[in-house]
């Protein structure tokens, strides 16, 4: 896990949005976070921890503390971290839930993996835990050595270490193995004991049981007993059977005798019955005759009914005829009335026409009245307008006159403009001329000064030349002197070697009266040569100086010429002098100023005139528009006047048409209309009456015809049917009354029929039975069976008793047998279970480490090997940090009751003894913790698939080290840069700043902390 970018807002001391870019720091491999106390260094770690897990880095800080005190309520506390795991980038955003003016604001945490979004505080924490493979506590123990807590992993007990390593090295399945074995062991033990109890209970349930508890003999004893029971059972069985057979024989005999007795009784009874029946025979015969009568009556009943209905129909039709007659009379009456009304209708029609005309006229008059009123109003309005317009017209006229006067005046002034412009140009030229002259005077002055300078220079150069010349001449003289001396010296030398009598090489004389003297202070050859050189160089010098002086002289001449020229140009006659210049200059300046002033005046006046001319133009325009307005007003007045005339004429016309138009009013119109409507209604009523009458008459006609036809037909049918009925009646009955009687008895028909049939059947059966019984009973007599009965009964009782005994025994045998079978089965199961139980129990004890002296479980065994490896890696670092003095060792023997195997000891080479980790000093324990953390993280990196924790943060602790240790620690950390690790250190130790270039500097300001990243 490498952090890439961290953003914080309103988090602890970071009020404003602060961004930390870790990319360059990661490249550096080792970086230092420095700053004053309380600036916010550990807060960075807190932020990372919070971003990942929603918790603080140290156990002393809880998450509530993180909200920045400086932040106003509406700014949320946000931490966002972009980090890389396994080559992929992840982004997590966390907010702090806080209270804003009483309302709780929910936290809005989310994690972004490419496109996938996980939301919610717990879900994000869970997802990150999955991703990194460690939860918050483990993360802190492995990745962060927090302030004051770095020794946690060092001092942790075996159990705590187990928890940490379990997650990292995925040995959870080993723990599960343990659990599974434990469960299984417990299960089996339970099963075994259950089986045992079952056996005990079953044993107890056996009635013949003599044992207390179940043991191996039990089964054999039970088997013996069961066999005995079986034997007894078979014996009893045989006995029973024998008795049953004898009982049966007796019983059969008894039953046959009993049957005969019964038959005899039966016969007597039947005879009695027969006699009874024969008594009723007469009654039955009479009932049969009645039945036949009733049947006959039923045959002709329908015919009677038909006749009755037909006569009813005839009755109905006659009534109808009578009613129709009454209707006819009514209709005649109505006809008469209608005729009278008809006459009245004509009158009404005439009246209505008259009224209609009057109505139309009245309407027309009304409309005219309105028009009249309109015209009168118009006239009034126009008169008013005309008055107003005339007033305005007056005012405008006056105004126009004024304006014209003013414009004429201005125009006069503007006409002067061209003259002024000309004057201005002249002024300008003059000013320029003066300027020119002034400049030239300045030039002349400068030249004059230069000329003076040059004259001086020339003088100096000339002097120098003279000086050089003198020195050269001196030198030359000297040189010549030296030549002469030399010569003399030569002569001296020669002279010295001359002996009297020998010829002189120079002059050949033999006598040497005046020998040349030796000259000693002759310059050496070298010095002479040097002198010669000096002379030549001096000559050169002289020539140089001469040329220089000459040059200067020429320059002077040139300047003089130039001055003359300028003087002529400017027409200055007098000799040049400082005063002259001053006078000339002041003169010209004055002239220039005056010209300037007058120029300025002209210029301003011209400007003024220009403005005036433009304003004149505008005024002219305004004037024109006013004039136009005046014209328009005139026109309007005229038009209004003509409108008034028109209105007056129309009023006159109307009055002519309708002289009494005033009299007309709305109410009059309304009454007229009402009357007219009324008349129309009456007329209509009469018409309707006539129509109704016609209709009624038509109806009556049709009805009358139909009814008469029907009546005739009905009468005929009725006569025919009546005749037929009478005939049938006479065939069957003597009189009509008999027929009536029989008809009324038809209800009893069914009952009687039934009685008769029953009687006959009954009689027949009895006769048959009688015959049968007589046959069977021939020659037999009744016998007394009481003694036999008693015998049978006694035997039956004893039989029952025997049966009971037998069945009881059978039951108990069977139940005991079942129990026995069950017990055998249970015994078998149990044996198997016991075997399994032993296996599992053994495994469990071995795996959980309860039996061995070291009390190491399997998981710990595996973890111990990992731990050994961590220690090996840690030892490499530790030996570097302590110059080989200390080494980690894993404790082998058990100590106490808790699970062991992961305890740590320190071997001190100097004293050659093992020491407890807790006995180390502060600085030494820091070194040991650091070594352990580094070893752990190296181990994780090399061996575990999935967990990538190649970041390490160390918060303080370096202050406890002396110089040499500090240097060693830094060397160790710097070496780690070669691996893929990134280590961040928080410290205020100055020495670290010198050695570690990259880092973050945190400063505390008034409004929170700021930080700068240097890399």
């Amino acid at each position, binding site marked *: 896990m490498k952090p890439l970018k961290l953003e914080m807002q309103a988090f602890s001391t970071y009020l404003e949005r602060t961004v930390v870019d870790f990319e360059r720091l990661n490249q550096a491999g080792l970086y230092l976070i420095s700053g004053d106390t309380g600036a916010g260094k550990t807060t960075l770690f807190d932020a990372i921890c919070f971003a990942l897990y929603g918790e603080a880095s140290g156990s002393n800080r809880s998450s509530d503390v993180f909200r920045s005190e400086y932040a106003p309520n509406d700014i949320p506390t946000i931490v966002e971290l972009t980090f890389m795991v396994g080559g992929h980038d992840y982004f997590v955003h966390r907010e702090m839930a806080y209270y804003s003016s009483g309302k709780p604001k929910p936290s809005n945490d989310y994690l972004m993996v490419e496109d996938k979004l996980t939301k919610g505080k717990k879900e994000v924490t869970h997802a990150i835990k999955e991703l990194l493979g460690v939860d918050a506590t483990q993360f802190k123990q492995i990745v962060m050595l927090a302030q004051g807590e770095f020794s946690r992993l060092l001092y942790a007990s075996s159990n705590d270490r187990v928890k940490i390593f379990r997650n990292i090295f995925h040995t959870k399945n080993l723990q599960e193995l343990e659990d599974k074995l434990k469960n299984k062991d417990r299960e089996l033990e339970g099963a075994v004991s259950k089986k045992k109890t079952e056996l005990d209970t079953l044993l107890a349930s056996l009635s013949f049981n003599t044992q207390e508890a179940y043991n191996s003999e039990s089964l054999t004893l039970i088997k013996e007993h069961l066999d005995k029971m079986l034997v007894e059972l078979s014996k009893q069985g045989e006995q029973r059977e024998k008795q049953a057979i004898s009982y049966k024989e007796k019983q059969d005999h008894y039953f046959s005798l009993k049957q005969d007795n019964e038959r005899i009784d039966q016969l007597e009874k039947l005879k009695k019955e027969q006699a009874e029946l024969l008594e009723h025979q007469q009654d039955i015969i009479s009932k049969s005759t009645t039945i036949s009568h009733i049947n006959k009556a039923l045959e002709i009943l329908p015919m009677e009914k038909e006749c009755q209905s037909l006569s009813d129909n005839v009755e109905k039709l006659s009534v109808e005829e009578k009613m129709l007659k009454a209707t006819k009379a009514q209709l005649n009456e109505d006809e008469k009335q209608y005729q009278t009304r008809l006459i009245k209708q004509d009158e009404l029609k005439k009246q209505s026409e008259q009224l209609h005309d009057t109505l139309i006229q009245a309407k027309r008059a009304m409309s005219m009245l309105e028009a009249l009123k309109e015209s009168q109003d118009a006239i009034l309005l126009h008169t008013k307008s005309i008055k107003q317009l005339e007033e305005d017209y007056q005012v405008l006229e006056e105004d126009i006159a004024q304006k014209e006067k003013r414009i004429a005046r201005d125009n006069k002034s503007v006409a002067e403009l061209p003259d002024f412009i000309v004057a201005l140009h002249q002024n300008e030229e003059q000013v320029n001329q003066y300027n020119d002259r002034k400049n030239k005077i300045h030039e002349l002055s400068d030249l004059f000064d230069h000329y003076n300078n040059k004259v001086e220079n020339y003088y100096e150069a000339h002097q120098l030349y003279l000086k050089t010349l003198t020195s050269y001449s001196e030198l030359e003289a000297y040189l010549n002197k030296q030549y002469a001396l030399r010569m003399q010296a030569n002569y001296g030398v020669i002279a010295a070697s001359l002996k009297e009598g020998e010829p002189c090489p120079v002059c050949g004389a033999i006598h040497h009266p005046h020998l040349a003297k030796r000259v000693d202070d002759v310059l050496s050859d070298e010095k002479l040569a040097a002198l010669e050189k000096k002379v030549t160089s001096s000559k050169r010098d002289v020539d140089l100086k001469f040329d220089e002086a000459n040059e200067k002289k020429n320059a002077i001449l040139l300047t003089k010429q130039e001055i003359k020229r300028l003087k002529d140009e400017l027409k200055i006659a007098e000799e040049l002098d400082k005063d002259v210049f001053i006078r000339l200059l002041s003169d010209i300046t004055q002239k220039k100023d005056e010209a300037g002033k007058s120029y300025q005046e002209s210029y301003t006046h011209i400007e003024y005139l220009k403005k005036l001319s433009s304003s004149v133009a505008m005024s002219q325009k305004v004037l024109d528009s006013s004039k136009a307005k005046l014209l328009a007003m005139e026109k309007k007045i005229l038009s209004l006047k003509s409108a008034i005339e028109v209105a007056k004429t129309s009023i006159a016309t109307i009055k002519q048409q309708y002289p009494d138009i005033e009299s007309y009013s709305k109410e009059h119109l309304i009454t007229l209309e009402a009357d007219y409507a009324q008349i129309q209604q009456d007329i209509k009523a009469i018409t309707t009456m006539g129509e109704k009458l016609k209709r009624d008459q038509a109806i009556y006609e049709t009805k009358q015809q139909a009814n008469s036809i029907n009546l005739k037909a009905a009468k005929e049918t009725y006569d025919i049917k009546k005749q037929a009925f009478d005939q049938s009646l006479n065939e069957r009955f003597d009189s009509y009354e008999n027929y009536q009687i029989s008809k009324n008895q038809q209800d009893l028909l069914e009952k009687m029929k039934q009685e008769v049939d029953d009687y006959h059947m009954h009689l027949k059966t009895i006769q048959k039975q009688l015959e049968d019984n007589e046959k069977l009973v021939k020659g037999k007599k009744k016998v007394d069976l009481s003694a036999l009965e008693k015998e049978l009964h006694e035997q039956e009782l004893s039989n029952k008793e025997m049966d009971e005994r037998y069945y009881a025994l059978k039951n108990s045998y069977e139940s005991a047998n079942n129990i026995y079978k069950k017990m055998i089965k249970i015994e078998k199961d149990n044996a198997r279970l016991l075997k399994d139980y032993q296996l599992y129990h*053994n495994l469990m004890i071995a795996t959980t480490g309860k039996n061995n002296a070291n009390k190491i479980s399997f998981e710990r065994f595996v973890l111990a090997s990992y731990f050994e490896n961590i220690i090996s890696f840690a030892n490499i670092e530790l030996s570097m940090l302590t110059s080989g003095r200390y080494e980690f060792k894993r404790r082998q023997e058990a100590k106490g009751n808790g699970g062991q195997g992961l305890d740590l000891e320190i071997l001190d080479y100097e004293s050659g003894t093992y020491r407890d980790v807790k006995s180390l000093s502060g600085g030494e324990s820091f070194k040991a913790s650091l070594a352990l953390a580094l070893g752990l993280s190296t181990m994780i990196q090399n061996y575990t*698939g999935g967990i990538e924790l190649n970041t390490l943060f160390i918060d303080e602790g370096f202050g406890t080290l*002396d110089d040499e240790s500090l240097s060693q620690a830094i060397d160790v950390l710097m070496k780690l840069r070669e691996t893929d690790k990134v280590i961040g250190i928080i410290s205020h130790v100055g020495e670290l700043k010198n050695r570690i270039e990259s880092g973050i500097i945190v400063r505390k300001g008034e409004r929170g902390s700021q930080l700068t990243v240097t890399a």
Partner: protein
Amino acid sequence: MKLIHIADLHLGKMLKLYNLLQLQKECLIQIEEAMRQDDIDGLIIAGDVYDRAIPPQEAVNLLNAFLSTIINDLHKKVYMISGNHDSSDRLNFASSILEASGLFIETHLQEQIVYHEEDDVRIYMLPFIRPIDIRRLYPECPHTNYNDAFAYYLSKQQPLDHNYRNILITHQFVGFHALTSESEQSLSVGNVEVIDPGLFEDFDYVALGHLHAPQYVHQEKIRYSGSLLKYSFDEVKQKKGYVIIDTKDMSFELVPFKNSQDVVILKDSFENLNDPTCYQDYRNDLIAIELTDTSIIPHAIEQLRLLFPHVLQLTYPALMGQEVNDIHHMDKIRHTSLVELYEDFYQQSTGTTLDEASLKIIGELLEGGEIDEAS
């Protein structure tokens, strides 16, 4: 003129909690004597004057006494630059005032290397710098490693006037095959600090500091004088001393230091070492003991300290090779299946082998876990 060249004083340094100041003082006194007697004109100190950026008081006092003897009493010149252990700002205190007295201090990088002329000798002083310093001065320099950055910087310098003897004092890691010692601090990771000695061809002599072993690099005139004392136990074989340079003919003389205590390594069995008759000569020296015994002797160091009061360190070289085995053991575990692992464990903890039926049970239970190995 004649000059003495020393470097890497590391005044105030502790060797395993033993204060070396006295021994350093002895060395400095020897230098003072040499300057007095052998007609030396100047002293060159090529960096790492102190051991830390903020040195202990006594170290400051020592340097103060030393320099005032040389400047005030002997009236000689001193040419001093800062090294990577020194704080450039602190060492630079009052440097411009001290120049008038003959103490020349350079601790910051200038555009042109500062030199001091004395008769026909020009002494160029280039303090310890990092590539970042060069790049701050010349932002267009693209190089981040020491060699290229240095070459760039040197290319920007005025050419040397060979009418003078040109001597360069600098504090860097020069030479690819130079001898290093444990007591030197590494300047960077992965050897980016090494500078090619060929860059200094032009100079008549290069007085180097930083590496503690006295040596010349590539040519005799490019030379490390070495540190005053042996500052770590891997320097015990080095002969520490100072260099006398004569500019007349550019000859060198190496003079060793004599100290009352030496730094030695004694490697023997505990028995021999504990014998009072052996190793008597080393009684008073600063010793690192390497016991050849193959098992740990309890309280070894306390016993030996009775004979040798200044035992600074005790190690067992024979026992150092054990870690390798453990790592092999780990590999083995990684590639073993869980079931086999369990058999081993069972064997170890109960002393009996696992029977068939139990093995089957374990195999079944671990079935789910068989797929990821014990990793």
